[in-house]
């Protein structure tokens, strides 16, 4: 049985990260060929798979749920606040919007030396680092009992979708609204982080609406971030995004 409250944010997060990883692999493939580039990507995915299995085993060891929930909540806050701040900066014009075409061109420029080993490492590291954020969300959202399968399947479905579409068109996936997805997912991830850290410290009764408080929090953060965008919009463009 799929838990959609877990699968949905995991799927959206994974889409964003896999699209970024695909752009790097695509750029590398023009330098060392598809076979070597996908080999590097597969190696990175194997590392991520091993990390996921290992973490799943650790979760099954019976660590006290309260501490685990707090630790994971802090990690989600670290991750979600960063995403939300970045996307607020982008929409308010303080940073340039994320652009897969530019990312593609920058990676191609890095590969101009023609070093095959360096190119392979760029693809491996790119997939590993983008996938690390997917791993974090998969593990974090799996703390909820029985949600492990839902989050892993959602991440794999996103990977299959991006790999399938990307493999067909063989161009950067520029039409996926990454910035909008990051905005929505950032609000959701911060909501889970806020909810779990406080629940772990103060007990389930601290949230007046119980689990429904998650929805209220997500709406609050989304609306609050929109207000921040309007407030920050008057500032000049200071730097381009990475």
């Amino acid at each position, binding site marked *: 049985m799929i838990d959609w409250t877990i699968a949905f944010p995991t799927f959206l997060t994974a889409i964003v990260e896999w699209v970024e990883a695909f752009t790097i692999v695509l750029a590398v493939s023009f330098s060392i060929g598809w076979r070597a580039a996908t080999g590097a990507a597969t190696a990175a995915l194997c590392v991520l798979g091993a990390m996921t299995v290992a973490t799943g085993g650790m979760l099954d060891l019976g660590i006290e749920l309260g501490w685990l929930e707090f630790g994971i909540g802090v990690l989600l806050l670290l*991750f979600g*606040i960063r995403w939300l701040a970045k996307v607020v900066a982008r929409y308010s014009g303080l940073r340039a919007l994320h652009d897969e075409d530019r990312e593609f061109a920058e990676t191609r420029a890095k590969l101009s030396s023609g070093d095959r080993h360096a190119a392979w490492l760029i693809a491996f590291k790119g997939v590993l680092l983008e996938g*690390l954020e997917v791993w974090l969300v998969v593990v974090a959202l799996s703390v909820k009992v029985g949600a492990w399968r839902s989050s892993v399947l959602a991440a794999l479905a996103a990977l299959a979708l991006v790999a399938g579409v990307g493999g067909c068109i063989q161009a950067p996936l520029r039409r996926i609204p990454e910035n909008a997805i990051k905005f929505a997912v950032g609000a959701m991830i911060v909501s889970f982080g806020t909810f779990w850290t406080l629940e772990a410290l*103060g007990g389930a009764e601290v949230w*007046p609406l119980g689990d429904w408080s998650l929805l209220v929090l997500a709406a609050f953060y989304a609306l*609050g*971030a929109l207000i*921040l965008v309007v407030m*920050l919009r008057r500032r000049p463009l200071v730097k381009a995004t990475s």
Partner: protein
Amino acid sequence: MSAFCKTLFGDTRNLAVVAALMAIEVALVYSDHAREAAFAIPPLVLVGVGWLAPR
């Protein structure tokens, strides 16, 4: 390794914001204001986001 840590934890400003939030949260909970924390922490999170966004 630094890229690995930065991916997981963000930069020092990001860490500082979350550390400050957790310190306030712990202080509220252990001073018997856990229910108030549910209303105080979310706006503080947005303050943190607003502080980080231009930096």
